């Protein structure tokens, strides 16, 4: 019952197989290669400054602290490096001693984009759970979620000033210690809420008005 394959069929099969191998090796060919390197950017913001101004209201009129009164209330501020792995200073510490009603300390600083990715920044805000005194206030010279391009800066202030009214209302007392915290968030520009005036460099003309502009010695 065994049937033999015809010799002729085997021969033809061999020729076809050899021809197939011959085509594969003999075909003119070329390979294209794509090599890629991706260098990612960086979201990195930092503080510049801070710059301290002190003044006092004498009978309701603002003036520079008289030299002989200067030492009794002092305001100091410095930038701190909270993240040594990134550029710039991520923190500002402010210390005020001997403050009394109608003494003012304003700490001016800028937020700089030190990275390569545009960011949207918030105004300095009190983070949840903080117990900042109401007489420590913020003034930011840029809108909320301001778009900050690399190598650009935006200015803001922290103002420390309480009045006799604050004392009467129990918001401040003699020999007291009060702490405060503010935060600025910077998010990559394309994943953050957009600001209405995001591209404006002059967001609030006259932003400094109302502040006594004498820089401390």
């Amino acid at each position: 019952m065994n049937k033999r394959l015809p010799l002729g069929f085997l021969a033809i099969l061999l020729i076809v197989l050899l021809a197939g191998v011959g085509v594969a090796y003999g075909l003119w060919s070329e390979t294209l290669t794509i090599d890629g390197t991706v260098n990612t950017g960086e979201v990195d913001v930092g503080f510049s400054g801070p710059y301290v101004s002190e003044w006092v209201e004498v009978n309701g009129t603002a003036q520079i602290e008289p030299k002989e009164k200067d030492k009794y209330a002092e305001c100091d501020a410095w930038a701190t490096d909270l993240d040594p792995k990134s550029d710039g200073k991520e923190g500002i510490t402010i210390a005020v001693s001997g403050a009394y009603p109608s003494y003012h300390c304003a700490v001016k600083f800028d937020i700089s984009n030190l990275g390569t990715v545009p960011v949207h920044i918030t105004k300095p805000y009190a983070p949840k759970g903080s117990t900042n005194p109401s007489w420590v206030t913020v003034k930011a010279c840029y809108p909320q979620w301001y778009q900050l391009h690399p190598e650009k800066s935006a200015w803001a202030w922290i103002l420390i000033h309480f009045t006799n009214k604050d004392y009467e209302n129990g918001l401040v007392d003699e020999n007291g210690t009060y702490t405060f915290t503010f935060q600025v968030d910077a998010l990559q520009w394309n994943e953050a809420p957009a600001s209405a005036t995001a591209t404006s460099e002059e967001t609030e003309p006259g932003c400094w008005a109302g502040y006594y502009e004498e820089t401390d010695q």
Partner: protein
Amino acid sequence: MKKNSRSLLKVIPLLIIGLLLATGIAYGLWSETLLISGVVHTGEVYGKWTSCICNDDGLDPLPTPWPYKYPIPVRKDVGKTICTIDSQDPRILHLTIENGYPSYWGNCEVHFANTGSVPVIIRGYSVVPKNFTLADDNGAEDGEIWVKYWDGVGAQMEPCPHKYCEQASSIQFHVEQPAQENHIYEFDVYVCIAQWNEDATMDECLAAAPKY
């Protein structure tokens, strides 16, 4: 019932996907946070008496120069003036006159210092009789006792140990003719100091000052 279960089964996966996406966005976002932290230590307005010296050195003092036409009498040791700073609260000074009699007179030099941390201005003083009528003048007979505080109102005092941190004043008194025998007359003298940079009247200063 079955229809509801089927609808729920369709919603749950969508919900999970949505939540995962939201979580992914929140954690994957490139961002940085800057921090501003501060501390404010407030100062203090505080003054205290530092000394009191009276001119009754045993013999009753006589006004100088002698203001009357009759001859200067020989001094006697009758009345006594005691001045002390309260041991518990140096903001209070006690002036006690013992065995006073009409025309018994005394003068006490008092010193006080700004021992707080804020420069102050003396806003005023007030003599408050507690149980008698204050005479208008030395020798006036419209009250039992005449009390005068020599002030320094308006003087500015820097916090100690500054060289201008102390103030000298004086309290004078005179027992007038209407004074009764064996009687105790009480009075308070308030001197009010307030922070240097705020305009305040004596009344405003007293109203704002702590009570003790």
